[in-house]
C-alpha cells in the first residue's frame, strides 16, 4: 500500500501532461506540497506524442526533459501514475479526495532493462501511437516515460506470459500480486489539468475516417513522422505502405462546426502548417502538400511561420472546406470533392494520403467533475468563481497550444497557492 502524506495545505494536481506537470512544479518550487495524479503509466501527456513543436520545429523531448529534471530534483511533489480521482468531497481548504490506483505489477526495483518485454509474447495496441502499431504486453510506454519503469498489461496477468516476465526479471521488480488500491487524501486546493482528446473523426461521416485507410488524423500523422512512431519516421500510407508524397491537410475537421465541436481548436492551423514541413523534410522538392482551409488562423508571432510556409513551393493552399471524400477502389487513393471558393471552381483532387486536422475536445466533457466547476458550451472548464478552490489548467479550460497551456497552468498554480496559504494562516 502506497503511503501518501497529504494535509489541507497540499495541492492536488489532476493530470500529468505538460499543464499538470507545470502546475505541480510551479507550486512545488514555491515550497508547497503537491500530489500529482496521472491516469496513464507515464507523465508527459499528449505533448510527449508530438514529433515537433511549432513554430520553431524543436522536439518536445527537450521541454519535457527540463520538466522531468525539475521534478526529479524536487522533494515536494509526489507522483501517482495509473491513478484516477474517483470522488471529491469537502470545500475550499478542506477537501477529501478518493484516488483509485491500478496495479502496475512492476515495483521500484525496475531498471528498465527490457528483459520482461523480450520474455513475453502477447502484444497490445500501442496507445501512445494511437493504436497504429503494437507493444509487447510488458512495456515501457515511450522513450521519455517517467517513471522509467516497465508496466505489465493487465490482460496477461494470470497467463504464462506473466510468469515468463517474472522469471526474466533479474531484479525482482515484477510483483504479480499487486492489487488495485484506494487512497483518501486531504488536500486544500485542486488543479484540474486533464487535457484534451482528439475529436472522434469517424463522426465526420463525409470524410470516411475509419472506412478509408488513407484518411488519418493529424495526431496519427504526428506519429508517422516521428522516428519513435510505428513507421520509424517514414511517411508511409496505411493501405499499402507506399511513400505518401501528395498529402491533403483538411482544416477544421470537427472544429467550428455546430454539428461537431462549436469552438475553434486553435492549434490545428499551425499544426498542419508544421506538418507540411515534415513532408518537405521527408521528400524535399518532390513533396506536395495541399492545405484545404476556411481561413488560416496563425496569430501574432505565428504569422511569420505561415508566411514562410506560403513561400514554400511544395505547399499549396485551397480556400475550401472539403465537402466529401471518395476512394478509388483499386488504388485506394482518397479523392477530395468540393468547391474552391476563390473563383468557385469545382474540384475532384486525388491525393496519396489525407490528414484531418482534428479538433480538440476537452477530456472533462461528460466526466463527473466536482460540483463547483462550471463548464462552457463546449465542455471546457470556466474560470473559477471567487472563493473557489478547484481550478482548471491547460487544455481542460480551453483549446491551447503547449506554450499557452504552460502559461495557463502557472496561473492556476498561483491561485491554488493562495488557497493553501490561507488555509495555513487559519491554522497558525
Amino acid at each position: 500500500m502506497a503511503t501518501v502524506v497529504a494535509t489541507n495545505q497540499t495541492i492536488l494536481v489532476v493530470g500529468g501532461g505538460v499543464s499538470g506537470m507545470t502546475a505541480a512544479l510551479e507550486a512545488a518550487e514555491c515550497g508547497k506540497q503537491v500530489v500529482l495524479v496521472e491516469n496513464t503509466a507515464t507523465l508527459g501527456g499528449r505533448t510527449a506524442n508530438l514529433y515537433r513543436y511549432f513554430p520553431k520545429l524543436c522536439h518536445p523531448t527537450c521541454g519535457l526533459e527540463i520538466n522531468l529534471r525539475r521534478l526529479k530534483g524536487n522533494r515536494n511533489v509526489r507522483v501517482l501514475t495509473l491513478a484516477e480521482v474517483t470522488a471529491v468531497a469537502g470545500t475550499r481548504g478542506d477537501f477529501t479526495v478518493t484516488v483509485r490506483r491500478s496495479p502496475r505489477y512492476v515495483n521500484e526495483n525496475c531498471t528498465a532493462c527490457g528483459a520482461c518485454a523480450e520474455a513475453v509474447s502477447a502484444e497490445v495496441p500501442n496507445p501512445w501511437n494511437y493504436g497504429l502499431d503494437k507493444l509487447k504486453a510488458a512495456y515501457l510506454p515511450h522513450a521519455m516515460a517517467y517513471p522509467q519503469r516497465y508496466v505489465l498489461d493487465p490482460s496477461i496477468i494470470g497467463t504464462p506470459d506473466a510468469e515468463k516476465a517474472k522469471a526474466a526479471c533479474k531484479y525482482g521488480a515484477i510483483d504479480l500480486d499487486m492489487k488495485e488500491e484506494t487512497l483518501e487524501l486531504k488536500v486544500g486546493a485542486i488543479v484540474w489539468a486533464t487535457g484534451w482528446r482528439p475529436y472522434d473523426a469517424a463522426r465526420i461521416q463525409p470524410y470516411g475516417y475509419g472506412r478509408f485507410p488513407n484518411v488519418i488524423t493529424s495526431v496519427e500523422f504526428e506519429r508517422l513522422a516521428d522516428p519513435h512512431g510505428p513507421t520509424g519516421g517514414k511517411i508511409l500510407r496505411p493501405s499499402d505502405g507506399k511513400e505518401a508524397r501528395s498529402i491533403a491537410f483538411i482544416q477544421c475537421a470537427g472544429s467550428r462546426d455546430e454539428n461537431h465541436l462549436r469552438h475553434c481548436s486553435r492549434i490545428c492551423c499551425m499544426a498542419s502548417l508544421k506538418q507540411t514541413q515534415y513532408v518537405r523534410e521527408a521528400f524535399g522538392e518532390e513533396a506536395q502538400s495541399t492545405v484545404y482551409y476556411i481561413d488560416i488562423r496563425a496569430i501574432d508571432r505565428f504569422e511569420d511561420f505561415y508566411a514562410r510556409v506560403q513561400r514554400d513551393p511544395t505547399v499549396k493552399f485551397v480556400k475550401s472546406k472539403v465537402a466529401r471524400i471518395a476512394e478509388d477502389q483499386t488504388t485506394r487513393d482518397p479523392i477530395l470533392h468540393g468547391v474552391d471558393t476563390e473563383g468557385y471552381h469545382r474540384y475532384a483532387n486525388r491525393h496519396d494520403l489525407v490528414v484531418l486536422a482534428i479538433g480538440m475536445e476537452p477530456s472533462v466533457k461528460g466526466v463527473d467533475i466536482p460540483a463547483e466547476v462550471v463548464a462552457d458550451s463546449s465542455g471546457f472548464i470556466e474560470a473559477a468563481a471567487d472563493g473557489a478552490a478547484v481550478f482548471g489548467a491547460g487544455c481542460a479550460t480551453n483549446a491551447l497550444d503547449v506554450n499557452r497551456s504552460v502559461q495557463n497552468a502557472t496561473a492556476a498554480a498561483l491561485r491554488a497557492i493562495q488557497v493553501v496559504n490561507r488555509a495555513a494562516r487559519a491554522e497558525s
Partner: protein
Amino acid sequence: MSELNEQALAKYRNSFLREVEERVDEGEWVKMCMQCGVCAGSCPFGPHWEHSPQKIFMMIRAGKREEVLASDSMWMCTSCYNCVVRCPRKLPITTIMHGLATYAHRLGLAPKNQPTRDFSVIFWENFTRNGRANEIRLMLRLWFKDGIGAGIRKALAMKDVGLGMLRAKRMSPLEIFGGHGVKDVKGFQAMIRKAQEIEDRKRGFSK
C-alpha cells in the same frame, strides 16, 4: 418592372442584404454564412446550376440584387437537404433558397420559362382550387403548357406512367370535370387567404 419591385427598390436602396433579411423566409441567416463552400460541394445538382448557395449568399451581401433574383439556381434546388445537414453554421439553406425563389417570383424577376417555376405555379393553382391535387388536370396543364404539339409528344413519352396511375387508381379521368375536394372548400380558401395576409404583413407587402 412590376410595382412591387419598384416599391422594394425604393425601400431598400443599396441594401439588398437588409431586403433579404426582412422579406425572404429565413433570410436573417444569410449573414451567418462563413463561405466555407461545403454546401456548394455537397449539392448533387452542383455542376448544373450557375450559382451555388454560398455564392448566392456572397452575392446578396455584395448587393447584386438583379443577378440574384434573376438566377435560376434557387429553382434548381431539389430539397435533398444535404447542404443543411453538413452546414457547419446550421443555416437552413434549403428554406432560404426556396424563400429567394418565392420572393423573385413575387417581384416578377424570376427567370421566364423556368420549368420548376412553371410547375410550381400550375401546382399551386391546381391545389388551392378545392384543397386536393387534381392529377389529371395537373398533368394536362403541365404537358400542354408549351403548345399542342409539345403536349402530344410529352403525353406519348409519359403514357406508361399515366396508364400505370390509372390502373393503380392514383388518377381518375373523371376528375377532369372538377374532381373531388376537401369537405369545406370555402373554409379552406379562407384559410389560404388568411395565411397569405399574415405572410404579407410579416414581409412588409401589405399597404
